[in-house]
């Protein structure tokens, strides 16, 4: 519980808008206590910038408890920064030392255009879910919940895959800016459960096709995504997605675009 004061040098990516060219700017963060969260450190820098009549650093954040998936920046070359299994908002300054230089960059991917500074547009991930990341069940028409027993191990697996918070760190960390881990987590979550079987094949094809259409890269099995993932979503789901896709393509009896909704 000891408290220390840090003086830090920040090199921050500043970009005025989606079409503007960006640049790094350097700021000093003075007398930062080690109990602050990383984003609180940025709040302090920003408040000073505003009071001095300058533009604060734009960054995305919301719940600040590591679950909403809004925050995220690349800190010294690592998505969400140096602490494993930790989102940017849950990173605390005790992970840094006095005098450190910190480089802050946005998620860089063609699928995530920069909106401003460290804020990127991740709606591509929403569109991947829209392509089939759901079970089609009409409100009010669900059968009694306990009618279909699901083995505990299967339910636990599905939950492992469902832990994804959609922050996009996997894309940011991947050398190819691939959204495989994100897409695979949802395909796996739903394909594991009996409720997800009816749409299983269509789902895999549609979601993968959308993932590609968004301009994300392909998976080259480096494993950077798994390391960067704040929720520990496993690479095994990518292997599962690959199986699901091949199976659905081999078995497909309807052309992919002709699906009726």
């Amino acid at each position, binding site marked *: 519980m000891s408290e220390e004061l840090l003086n830090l040098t920040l*090199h921050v*990516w500043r970009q005025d808008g989606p079409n503007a060219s*960006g640049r*790094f700017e350097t700021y000093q963060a003075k007398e930062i206590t080690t109990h602050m969260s990383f984003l609180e450190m940025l709040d302090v820098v920003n408040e000073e910038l505003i009071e001095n009549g300058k533009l604060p650093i734009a960054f995305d954040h919301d719940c600040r408890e590591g679950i909403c998936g809004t925050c995220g920046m*690349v800190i*010294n*070359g*690592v998505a969400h920064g140096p602490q494993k299994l930790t989102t940017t908002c849950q990173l605390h300054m005790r992970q840094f030392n006095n005098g450190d230089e910190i*480089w802050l*960059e946005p998620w*860089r*991917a*063609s*699928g995530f255009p920069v909106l401003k500074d460290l804020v990127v547009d991740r709606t591509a991930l929403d569109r991947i879910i829209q*392509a089939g990341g759901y079970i089609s069940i009409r409100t009010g028409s669900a059968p009694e919940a306990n009618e279909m027993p699901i083995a505990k191990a299967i339910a636990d697996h599905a939950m492992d895959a469902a832990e994804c918070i959609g922050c996009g760190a996997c894309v940011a*960390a991947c*050398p*190819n*800016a*691939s959204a495989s881990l994100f897409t695979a987590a949802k395909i796996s979550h739903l394909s594991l459960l009996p409720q997800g079987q009816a749409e299983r094949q269509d789902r895999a094809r*549609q979601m*993968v*096709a*959308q*993932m*590609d*259409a*968004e*301009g*994300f*890269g*392909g*998976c*080259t*099995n*480096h*494993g*950077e995504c*798994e*390391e*960067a993932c704040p929720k520990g979503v496993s*690479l*095994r789901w*990518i*292997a*599962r*997605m*690959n*199986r699901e*896709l*091949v199976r659905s*393509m*081999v078995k497909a009896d309807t*052309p*992919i*675009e002709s699906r009726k909704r």
Partner: protein
Amino acid sequence: MQRALTLQQTTIGKKVIMALSGLIIVGFTIGHFLGNLNLYLGPEAMDGYAEKLQSLPPLVWGTRLVLLFALGAHISSALSLWARNRQARGSRYQKRKDLATDYAARTMYWSGPILLLFIIYHLLHFTILPAHPGEVYRNVVEGFQDPLIASVYIVGNVALGFHIFHGIYSAFQTLGANHPRYNSYRRDAAIAISAAITIGNLSFPIAVLAGIVTL
């Protein structure tokens, strides 16, 4: 962009193609290495083995066609993914730290082209423009006695080792073989196969340079 319609149009499909074609090539490489062990049995064995193969044109040409097709598929998928992956990043990171990527994985885009050049050289050297047609043993030993040529083979085979290490490991993942209980074997298998082929292949030029295998 339009959503993809067929397996090979997807990034995953392309990787599946790379994995399958890669496995075919690795399979051939193993056979190729085992055949080359004849080198240690002397000129008669080696040349006899070559003659025996040549006497079976359907096998030779069948293998060549399959390999050519596999290599073509492997390379075209690789190029297509490479172009796509470069584009997917957009702007580059000023700072970037790899957390999981090993040397082999990081250098795939280098070891691949090096291997291609090596294969072309290797084919020209022994198959298309051999110094002494029909005398396989002599061609090999004479060739490897030249340190420059031997070093080309050494570099080529080191590249091969790294490439197939990541390739084999990666193929398991691409083809969907990932289960926590067996995952450690994936890596072990990749290390074992790539190490056996590389060390075995490297032993030929080294044995010649060291004077263990002579004319």
